[in-house]
């Protein structure tokens, strides 16, 4: 797992040259990549990742494991991910509390789960199988969602039970808590109070957009003040946790993301001073 007190960025194509060509290394403690983009046989993307790995610790963040699939996790996917894990030796391997595949159909979206005892049994079995295949513990990220179903527990209770059953950790996406809380009317602070703090090993920060009726997790905006406020509240409860800025669309010059990362550092410093 990543040490605490670290600050990182998602490695995206427009910034490859910044990360590879500069004489001085980009001032980040780690980078995170989308695993599926590098689960390939060869070529330039894999070469870039190997070279970046020589300069920085790397976290592998997946979007297609589908730990919520009622028909199980895909063994071919796990085999390909294991090959990448063996090649890169990442600090973290993570995916989402969601499903995207059923009976051969792939939605390529992070679809919501009902928080029922049955779903908990299925997700726990799938995460267990994935961790066995990868030979290591994973982090599971809380999703943003636009639909909820009747269930037996809250999302944070579901995540706590999943951690207890499987030994997995949590990747806490603060923006996703904000978006889901606004969309479904729950209290974001109650969420932070409800998750097992000792299991949180990484935090994502991102921006969102206002849709017609719902907040949409677009990752195409700077981190808004509301999410910074919730981040400070999270750090007050969790202590310092490895934090990264996640931008997937409308990607700005690297300097803008580094400035956002400095903001995260400043908030973390403030929380640390307050706790001392």
């Amino acid at each position, binding site marked *: 797992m990543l040490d605490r007190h670290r600050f990182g960025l998602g490695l995206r194509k427009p910034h490859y040259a910044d990360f590879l060509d500069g004489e001085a290394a980009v001032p980040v403690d780690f980078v995170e990549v989308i695993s599926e983009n590098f689960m390939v046989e060869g070529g330039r993307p894999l070469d870039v990742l190997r070279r970046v790995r020589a300069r920085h610790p790397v976290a592998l963040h997946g979007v297609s494991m589908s730990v919520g699939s009622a028909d199980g996790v895909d063994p071919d996917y796990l085999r390909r991910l294991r090959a990448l894990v063996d090649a890169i030796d990442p600090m973290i391997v993570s995916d989402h509390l969601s499903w995207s595949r059923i009976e051969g*159909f792939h939605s*390529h979206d992070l679809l919501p789960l009902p928080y029922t005892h049955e779903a908990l049994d299925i997700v726990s079995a799938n995460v267990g199988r994935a961790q066995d295949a990868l030979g290591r513990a994973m982090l599971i990220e809380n999703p943003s969602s636009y639909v909820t*179903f009747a269930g037996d527990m809250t999302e944070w209770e579901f995540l706590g039970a999943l951690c207890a059953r499987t030994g997995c950790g949590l990747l806490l996406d603060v923006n996703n808590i904000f978006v889901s809380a606004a969309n479904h009317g729950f209290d974001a602070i109650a969420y932070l109070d409800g998750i097992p703090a000792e299991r949180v090993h990484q935090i994502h920060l991102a921006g969102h957009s206002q*849709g017609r009726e719902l907040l949409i997790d677009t990752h195409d905006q700077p981190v808004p003040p509301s999410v910074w406020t919730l981040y400070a509240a999270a750090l007050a409860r969790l202590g310092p946790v490895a934090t990264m800025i996640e931008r997937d669309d409308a990607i700005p010059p690297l300097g803008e993301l580094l400035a956002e990362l400095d903001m995260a550092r400043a908030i973390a410093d403030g929380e640390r001073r307050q706790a001392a």
Partner: protein
Amino acid sequence: MSLLALQRDFRRWLDHEAADAGARLGPQAAPGLSVYLNNYRGQLMACLAESYGAVKAWIGDDAFESAAATHIERRPPHSWTLDDYALDFPDTLEAIHHADPEVGELARLERGLARIFVGKDAEPVVPAMLAGIDWERARIGFVPTLTMMPVKTNAAAIWSALADGEHPPAVQFLPDPATVAIWRNGFSPTFRTIDDAEREAIEALAGGLTFGALCGRLVESIGEEKGPVLAGGMLSQWLSDGLVAHVRDLG
């Protein structure tokens, strides 16, 4: 509702916009389900548009979006990687634009270039590594990304012009059917239109024929003077193209 039943209904909502399935997901779900449907279709549309930029530029935005919508309706994604979703699109384009064969050929060329971009690595052989080879007994191996694509039109020239931001030439049928060889030179995808003699030579060598035996065949077909010259010329071209991955001297 079991998780399996819920996921089957969600799938039917996404790939068929089935109202009965959507209704079973809950009375309050409608606004959220619209977001997921929009994300699903938007993501697949963007995947096809990014993968087939030259086709889009050639047939125009409206025709492209109509073809992509047809493809999304008929072929739901079946692989964990979005890259795979784009692979079947040339079939859909060929079915829709069957009177314009250059459209399908352009699509197959774009698909070929995209596939080899992340294909297996191989260090190309350079001439300095070949000192002392007994060419009579030498077996030539080509880079693993090498693929052959039969063509009837000037799709390759159209693609090159579009990729360079130039005005593309008018579509033309080639005087004879030809082949476009597609491969990766280092990390750069590339292609070249080759004639039947070169295609046959590559296929024979890839099938295990020695270089000496290839020369023998060419001597039989085009004579003692021209045969070795043609074989040597092709070898020199393959080396400079970064097409040769290894030369094994069986002696």
